[in-house]
Structure formats: structure tokens, C-alpha cells
């Protein structure tokens, strides 16, 4: 089967810092792929390379059979790529609803303003922000802004959705709700790559997991395989909190 996304020997430097090197893996249609690794491992950078915010210094990314080299983020959005930002980026002076309408208008389906309004209402309901629809996006709290990120990305009706730490900062019951939301999104046929530090959630959700450390892939496999992987455990030893979570998940 042709993968939806192929990452082939990708490297990216920032000055003297090698943020990614030789990263290679594939993502298949319909799966949830977990992307984990210690802080600064290069996870967010990889997302930025996938959606062409950064160009890779080496290697190439292929989305839906086409190399992304030379394509801009907006080309990829039209092709069916959508993402959330780890550090939220609301369009502050626009209403919550208009934020989501932007997602629907300019995403894969390139909808008219009228259609986009209907999609926005539906998606806002889905993520539980209906009551806030007419508020300015800048006035939401952080958890709500995270959901807004999610809503905007979903409104684009993407084929591949990149989620960057959507669980961070949520309380346990919010996490349960968000995990359920992610499951529902996948059930609609959307392929997902998910960066997450909340181990039990990612182990629960993912079909496969890729582990990054210092910009390199150190392990790929099912959640069971990853938990049992000695190399992964060592990588996390530098971060006792995460190591503990990893153990608990095992």
C-alpha cells in the first residue's frame, strides 16, 4: 500500500544545531501514529518540515505521492494537510466562529463563506465551543484555545491531521474527553500524527509509535514494543517524570 506520508532521510539544522537528522518513516491511511521523545527532541520541528513551514536541509517529504519540496504551507493545506500548534495561534481579533470559518474556507474543500459557516457550527459543537462562538478568540483561556486549534484544523476536512500536544495543560477529565474526540476524528477516516507527552493517552490511542531523541528516530513500533524497548527507556531517564509515566503505562 502506498503510504499517505513518507518521510525520507530528513535532516534540518538551525545554525550549528542539528534538530533533525536521517528521520525516516511512513504513515498509512487511517492510522494514528504517536510521535514521542524528550523535550527538544525535534518533534515540533518535524511537523514544521512536514507542512513546509521549514524546508528540510536533507531528504524529502512525500505527501499523497507528491514531493512537498517547493510547495508552500497553503498548497499543502489545499492538498489535505492540517495541524494544531503547540503554542496556540488564535486569530485574536476575530470571533471564535470566524477562526473556524477560515479553516473551512481555505482548507482542502475550499468552501464558500456560507458553507463554511455551517461547517464551523458543526465543528464548534463537536469540540464543545458552541457557546463561545461569538466571542473574540483572544478572550478564550488556554484550554479553549487548544480546542479552537483543533476546530480550525478539523473544519478544513483534512486527510492528514497533525496534533501537537493537544492534551498539554488539560485536567484528567478534559484529557479523557479529548482522547475520545481524537478517536472520533479517526473514525471519520482522518489519518493522525500525534505528538504527546501524556504517556498513557498516547499508548492508548496510537496504532504505532515513533520515538525521537536528539533529532533521530531511536525506535518505531507498536505501543507494547515501545514500552519494552530498552533504548527508549534510557532516552527518557534524563526526564524522571516522563520515565515514571512510561513505567506506569507499561
Amino acid at each position, binding site marked *: 500500500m502506498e503510504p499517505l506520508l513518507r518521510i525520507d532521510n530528513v535532516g534540518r539544522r538551525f545554525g550549528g544545531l542539528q534538530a533533525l537528522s536521517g528521520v525516516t518513516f511512513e504513515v498509512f491511511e487511517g492510522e494514528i501514529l504517536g510521535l514521542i521523545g524528550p523535550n527538544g527532541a525535534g518533534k515540533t520541528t518535524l511537523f514544521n518540515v512536514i507542512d513546509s513551514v521549514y524546508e528540510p536541509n536533507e531528504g524529502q517529504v512525500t505527501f499523497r505521492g507528491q514531493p512537498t519540496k517547493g510547495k508552500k504551507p*497553503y498548497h499543502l493545506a*489545499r492538498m489535505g494537510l492540517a*495541524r494544531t500548534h503547540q503554542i496556540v495561534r488564535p*486569530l485574536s481579533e476575530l470571533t471564535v466562529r470566524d477562526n473556524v470559518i477560515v479553516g473551512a*474556507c*481555505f482548507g482542502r474543500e475550499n468552501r464558500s463563506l456560507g458553507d463554511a459557516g455551517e461547517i464551523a457550527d458543526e465543528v464548534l459543537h463537536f469540540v464543545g465551543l458552541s457557546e463561545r462562538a461569538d466571542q473574540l478568540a483572544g478572550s478564550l483561556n488556554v484550554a479553549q484555545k487548544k480546542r479552537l486549534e483543533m476546530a480550525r484544523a478539523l473544519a478544513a476536512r483534512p486527510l492528514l491531521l497533525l496534533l501537537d500536544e493537544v492534551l498539554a495543560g488539560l485536567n484528567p477529565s478534559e484529557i479523557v474527553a479529548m482522547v475520545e474526540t481524537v478517536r472520533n476524528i479517526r473514525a471519520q477516516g482522518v489519518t493522525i500524527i500525534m505528538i504527546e507527552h501524556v504517556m498513557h493517552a498516547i499508548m492508548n490511542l496510537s496504532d504505532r509509535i515513533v520515538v525521537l531523541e536528539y533529532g533521530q528516530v531511536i525506535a518505531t513500533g507498536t505501543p507494547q514494543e515501545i514500552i519494552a524497548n530498552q533504548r527508549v527507556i534510557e532516552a527518557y531517564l534524563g526526564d524522571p517524570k516522563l520515565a515514571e509515566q512510561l513505567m506506569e503505562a507499561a
Partner: protein
Amino acid sequence: MSTTSDVLGRLHARPAAARWRNPGLWLGMLALLLVGLWPVVSGQAATREVIFTMLLAIALASSLNILMGYTGYVSFGHVVFFGLGGYVSMFLLSLGQPLWVAVPAGGVASGVLAFLLGKAILRLRGTYFALATIGINEAMRTFINNFGPFGGSTGISLNFSVYGNYGGAANALWLAYYAVLALALLAILVSYIVKTSKFGLGLMAIREDEDAAEVMGVFTPNAKTWAYVISAIIPGMVGALFFFKNGNIEPADAFRLQFSIETLVMIMLGGQGTVLGPILGALGYQQLRSFLLTNAFFKDYQLVIAGVLLLLIVLFIPAGAVGWLRKRFPRLRNVLP
């Protein structure tokens, strides 16, 4: 009471149909039309001159607002389009072309210039873009100062006989007045259409966060370029009419940076990014300006006061008058575009 909320409710529920039933838009345009027709009724040339200046300011401020208020790109040198439009049309008029060819040609020339510049300078962000626009205005002034066909530093003067084609000088002045009134109304309509369109939503996304807008699929280079082009065309036509009425054009008059900055103050005063803001700002600023100019004490300090005013707005009501109202009373958002 219930009727108000019914109207607001309907506006919210059916945005497509409600788009053309916005009371703020129509009341604003109607009020402007009445003000614009006042000199026609009274028949006074002096009133006409005062209102001509206001209409001119409204057309320029509403156009610049599309770039500055909606897209978030501040063009300090926007007067370059006013000047270029003026020059192109005066050149055509002096060759014997009729006004109805010369004025649209002025608009087209400005639009083309914006298109050519757009892709290059709209890559710059914030202050760098603002500085580039000043540079372009200065470069254009210098170029035309040395450009033979446009009369170099002496510029172009119309032969008085040109006005004969429009029923004499007195009639020609009225003709220019009507045309500027029409352009001011058109500018407001264009501003509203852009603001309530998908294209306009893309522009506002760029204003709020350009990188996020790109990731969401807004084709930012194209959107910015078209915003720039749209914001340049009407100033080009207004410049054409202004200098037709004036009878002559010189580089120093055509590319006055001060004029650009005054337009910026108007937009800030009324509320950038709103449709009604530039109208209110233009009216308010022109009122203030004519008061200052006729006051013996303030006469020489007009620009100083404009500067202080700008500072006060930025410090205390950065959203401008209409923006402040919309923030303070969220329900007004549906009726004050």
C-alpha cells in the same frame, strides 16, 4: 426591545442574506449621499469645496483601510497612487483624451503599479514594509521630476480650452465633484464587499497571524497583492479628478508624504479595519483641520497637532472610534460594519 434582538438574531442566523441588509452600511452611505448632495441643493461653490475635500479624504481613507485595516500592512507612501493616477490622466488629458478615458486610466495605472510592486515589497513585514512604501513614493517623485514627457519639475498644466469640452470651467468643477462623490460611495461599497467576503476573511487572517493563515491555506502572497491593488485603484482615480479640477500637476504636489500620513491619522481616528471608521475619521479630521487652518494661532501647527492626535489615539483608543464602540458594545458588531 424584542424587535432589536430579532433583527440581530436574523443577522446572525442568515449571514449570506443579511450581508445586503446591514443597516450601518446603508445608513452610512445614505448620510454620505445627503451630505454630498447638499452643495448641489444650496448651489454654493464654497460649500462644495469643503465637501469635496471630505469626499476625497473618505475615498482615500476607505481604500487605504483595505490594506492597512484589513490586511495589517501599513503603507506610509500610499499617496504615490494618488500622484501617479493624477499624472497619467493629466498626460492623457493634455493629449486631448476625454475625462472618461483619463480617469479610469489613472486608476488602472495605479493598480498596475501596485501589482508590480506587491509581490516584491509585500514580502517585507511591519516596519520594513512601511519604510519601503515611503522609499517608493520618494523614488517616484524623483523619477517624474526628471521625466520629460510628464513635464519634469514643472509638471503638466491643462490648457483652459480643455474645460470647454465639459461646458466650461464652472461646469467642469461640478463634474469633478459628482465624480468624486460617486468614487467615495464606491470606495465604501468596495470596502464593505471586501470585508464581508471570503477574500476579506483571508486578509484579516493575515493581519492576525500571517504564518498561521498560511498553514490554514490562505494563499498569502496573492491575497496581499490583490489587497494592495484594490487599495490603489480608487486613489488613482481620485488623484486624476483632483488634478483635473486643479488644472495643473507638479511632482511636489502629487507625492506629498504629509498627505499619506494625514490619511493614516483619519483611519486610526475612526477605527482601522472597520467600514465606517475611515468615513468618520475623514470627516472628523477634516473638520479639525479646517478649524485649525482658519484659526490664526493654530494655523502653523496643523501638522504638529495631527502628530499629537495620532499619538493620543495610539495610546488611548488604538481601535479608533468605531472600533471602540464595537468592543465596548459587542452587539453593535452586527450593525456597525
